[in-house]
Structure formats: C-alpha cells, structure tokens
C-alpha cells in the first residue's frame, strides 16, 4: 500500500513496460527515457492539482489545504461511477470532474465564503482560512472513510496494449494521463484567454473592485474559479487511479508534491504550476530510478530547495503579492 503514485509506478507489476521477459533488452538510455515518461505523466497529475491550488490562490487569495482531498474525492467518485454504471473511462472521467466541481462550489459557498468575504491573504480572516482548509481536509477524509471505508481500491481500466515506439513500450495508462491532462490544460488556457468568462476570471484574480466596477458578478466568478480548480483536482485523481490505488489517504502526498510544484514554478502562476509539476514528477522519477526508491519523497523537496535558493519567487513567479 503506497501513498505515492511513483512507487506504484515503479513496482514491476504496475509497469507493463518491463514485463514479458524483455528486461534484458532494456538499456540505460531506454531506462532513462522510461523514467522520464513516467515522471512526465505523474508530473502531469501534480500539475493539475498545482493548477487548482494556484487558481484558488490567485482568485480567492487563499491557500487551499484541502485540495488533496478534493483529488481523493474525485478519484472515489470516478471509481464509484466506473463500478456502478459500467460507463467507459472517458465519460466517467468527465462526470467525476463535473460532479467534483459542483461539490467544490458547494464547499466554497457554504463554508469558505464567510471567511473569504472578510479578506484573504495575510489578514486575520486569511489565517482563519488556513485553519478552515486543514479542518476541511480532515472532514473530507472522514466523510470518504464513512462512505468508502479504509481499503485501497484498484481502478482497473483496460487501456489495451502498450504503445510501441522504437525500442520503447509506452504503457497506455501513462499515455492517457499525458494526453488527457494536456487537453484539459489547453481547454483551460483557451477559456482563460479567449472567452469573456476567462477575461472575467482574470479580472477577479487581479483586482476584485475593478472587476466589480466593470460589471463582473464577482461572487459568481469566485465560485467558478473554485469549481474549475476542484474539477482539475478531480481529473488528476481519476487519471492517476488506474496506475495507483484509490484510498482515503491518497490526497496528503499529492497535496505536498503539488505545493512543491506550485512553488517551484512560481506560486499563483498557471504556466508555473504546469512546469513545476512536470519538474517535480521527472525529478522524483529519475531519483527513484537511479538513486534509490526508498527516499523517493525527498527528491521533490531537494528540487524545491535548489530552485528557491536560486530564485525565491519560483521559476515563472513574479514578486509576491503584497497585502496590508
């Protein structure tokens, strides 16, 4: 029972690329490329969670500590839909994403709004929001525990044969993660850059008063931002589920990695979240493969420390928002 996706990814049973006696053929270069591909796909999952955290930070001025649990709830909803309805993977993914998005909106409206409307960031209400986030994390874990129990569930999806590229056999589950995550990021980018909704979201993220005076329904946009962030988290959960187990504690590890990713890329920057996620994923995968899998959780934080030593605002980060 492993908390992190990478250990499951590196265990021989979960990685079809090393199966069927082909191990002798695998050279160091192939091993390296394999690790990078695993790292990129797991990194995509971190990136989706980090995107949500960054979106919420820039839109609501809060750091959402329950985002790992949103990812977990999303994975469980996906699993339940998959088992109960027998729908194919893609509709299950979409349904889980939409449902979790609405659960997120509900959580924001009922529990967070009272605090965020008093101001976020470094205000007293902002501090309260940090504590409420931790509380929500515990509550969601326990709700999931009551509904689904403590057991880890497999999420077996028949993705078909590995994709053969030259000497490499790419497991389809990894290809799926990368492709789906890329599509989601592209859609998010298009929505933010090309639509009035996206324009309004960017306006609210930058300055709520001016957004209001431009006629934007700011409370509605805040719900939309939170919903989109939770939907991305759920997508990450459903994407990682087939190569990992679905279990109540799965959110904690991912939250920490996603925070590392968001900070490496520059907190609040959306391209930074994606870049940071991929860097954390690849670093972790290479470290686990070439150095030692025992300390796999360390590599992300070594990367974090190194990046912060060179550029404290993160790679694509701008100077921190100053709040009174």
């Amino acid at each position, binding site marked *: 029972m492993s908390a992190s996706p990478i250990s499951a990814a590196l265990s021989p049973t979960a990685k079809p690329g090393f199966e069927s006696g082909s191990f002798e053929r695998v050279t160091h270069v192939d091993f390296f490329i394999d690790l990078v591909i695993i790292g990129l796909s797991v990194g995509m999952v971190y990136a989706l969670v980090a995107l949500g955290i960054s979106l919420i930070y820039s839109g609501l001025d809060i750091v959402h500590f329950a985002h790992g649990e949103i990812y977990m709830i999303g994975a469980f909803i996906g699993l339940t839909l998959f088992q109960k309805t027998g729908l194919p993977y893609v509709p299950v993914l979409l349904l889980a994403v939409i449902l979790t998005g609405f659960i997120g909106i509900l959580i924001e409206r009922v529990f967070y709004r009272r605090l965020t409307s008093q101001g976020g960031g470094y205000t007293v209400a902002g501090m309260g929001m940090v504590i409420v986030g931790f509380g929500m994390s515990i509550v969601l874990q326990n709700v999931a525990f009551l509904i689904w129990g403590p057991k880890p569930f497999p999420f077996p999806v028949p993705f078909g044969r590995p994709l053969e590229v030259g000497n490499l056999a790419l497991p389809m589950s990894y290809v799926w993660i990368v492709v789906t995550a890329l599509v989601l990021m592209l859609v998010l980018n298009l929505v933010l850059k090309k639509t*009035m909704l996206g324009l309004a979201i960017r*306006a609210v993220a*930058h*300055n709520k*008063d001016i957004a209001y*005076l431009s*006629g934007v329904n700011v409370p509605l946009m805040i719900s939309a931002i939170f919903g989109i962030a939770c939907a991305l988290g759920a997508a990450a959960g459903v994407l990682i589920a087939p190569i990992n187990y679905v279990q109540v504690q799965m959110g904690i590890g991912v939250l920490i990695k996603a925070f590392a990713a968001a900070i490496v890329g520059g907190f609040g920057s959306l391209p930074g979240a994606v870049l940071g996620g991929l860097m954390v994923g690849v670093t972790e995968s290479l470290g686990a493969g070439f150095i030692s899998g025992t300390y796999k959780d360390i590599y992300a934080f070594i990367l974090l420390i190194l990046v912060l030593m060179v550029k404290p605002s993160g790679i694509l980060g701008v100077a921190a928002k100053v709040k009174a």
Partner: protein
Amino acid sequence: MTTSGPMLEIKDLVGGYGSVQILNGASLKVDRGQIVALLGGNGTGKSTLLKATSGLIKPWRGAIVFDGERIDGLRPDTIVRRGLVQVTQGKEAFPGMTVEENLRLGAYVVGDRAKTARALERVYSYFPVLKEKRQQLSGTLSGGQLQMVCIGRGLMSSPKMIMLDEPSAALAPQIVMEIFRTIHRITKDGMTVLMVEQNVRMALLLASYGYVIKDGVIHIEGPADKMIHDDNVRLSYLGGTVANREARL
C-alpha cells in the same frame, strides 16, 4: 424608467469603512447631460461618496436614486447593469491584459458581439491612440494612456452616467487637457458625468455645476461659473496660505 428628473440624486448619505464614519449626510444632484464637479481636499469623503454610489461600499443611511430608482445597497455589477459606471482613482487597468481585453471587459454586461464592437469603435474614436496600441499589454502604457483605457473601459457598457475619480491625477498638463476635452466630447454625445477633482479650476471650467465637500457633508454648491470666482470655494477647498492657494489655482 423616467426620463425627467435628475439622473442621480444622493440624499443624506452616511457611511464609511468599518467603524470609521466618513460621510455625514451628504446630498447632491446630477441633472441629465450635465457635468457636475465634486471638489474637496484630501480625506473629505469624495472618493467614499463615489464608492458608496457605485456599490463598492454599502452606505449606512440615506438614499441614492439613479434614473428614478433606488440603487443604494445594490451590488456594484448590478449598478453597472443599471447604467451607472465608476472609473476609480489611480488608473487601475489590468496590466496582464491587452488594451483591447481591458476594454472588452468593460462590456461584460453587454453580452452582444455587435454592440460590443460598436462600443469599441466609439471608444477608439474618443481615444485614437488606444486603437494603435490595442494589442499591447496595458502594463506597458504611459499614465495618460492608462487613464484613457480606464475611462474607455467605463464607456464600454454604454452607461447613462459615468463617475470619474480624479481623471487628471498625476498626469502631465497636455494630457490633462486632452482628457478633459474628451470628457467634454463624451458629454456632448449625451453622457452625464460626475467628476471628482483636485484640479479645481479645470474641473469648474468644464462642469456646469459644482459641489464642495468638507468633513463628509456638502459645504458649498452652485453653478460652476459662479464658483470659479468664489473665494470661499478656494478657501474651504485649500484652507492654506495665500501662496499655497495661488500655486494650486
């Protein structure tokens, strides 16, 4: 919808921030098609009055009637939908958006491509320089151009009335002249304007009626051409030495 009566009427407005009371019963009236200047020194409640009118802060007591309907206590975006737009002080555009994105955001309540395109063309006709720079990020603009973006954004929803908070602040004299000329043109095209200004002389030359606010109440009011020669206006506004007064006016 009434077509007679004042465009905006504020009656005995009381309000402030937190527990600090700034407005102590201010009343004013803006007639249709007029430019009205609201003058006053720092901390007298000019900006607070505008914020209470545009809905950014909720007034504690009093009434705000816009175009025949009460708007006090409504959300800012609802007030924009009713046709009353505030352009804030400090030339606050969105630096990460292009000039055109900034302007389009102002048409958020319009929701009609053709109407938005027409509004955009009209804003470009008022500020031709913005058309040249429309694909540029607004973070790269000069102060005057930023002010044009902000006023232009306010015009994009084709409001009935616009409230400008110190449009001349921190701008070079030629730019101030240009902005004031454009405000005059906008009013000629049927807009009603309430303008908060520190630049008393310029504001009174442009406006047809003026109010001086002091300690959160209207202290002096009258036709602008009379006020411009009124020593009381200068004194109550500046409250300083003669030299200081001469320097400012």
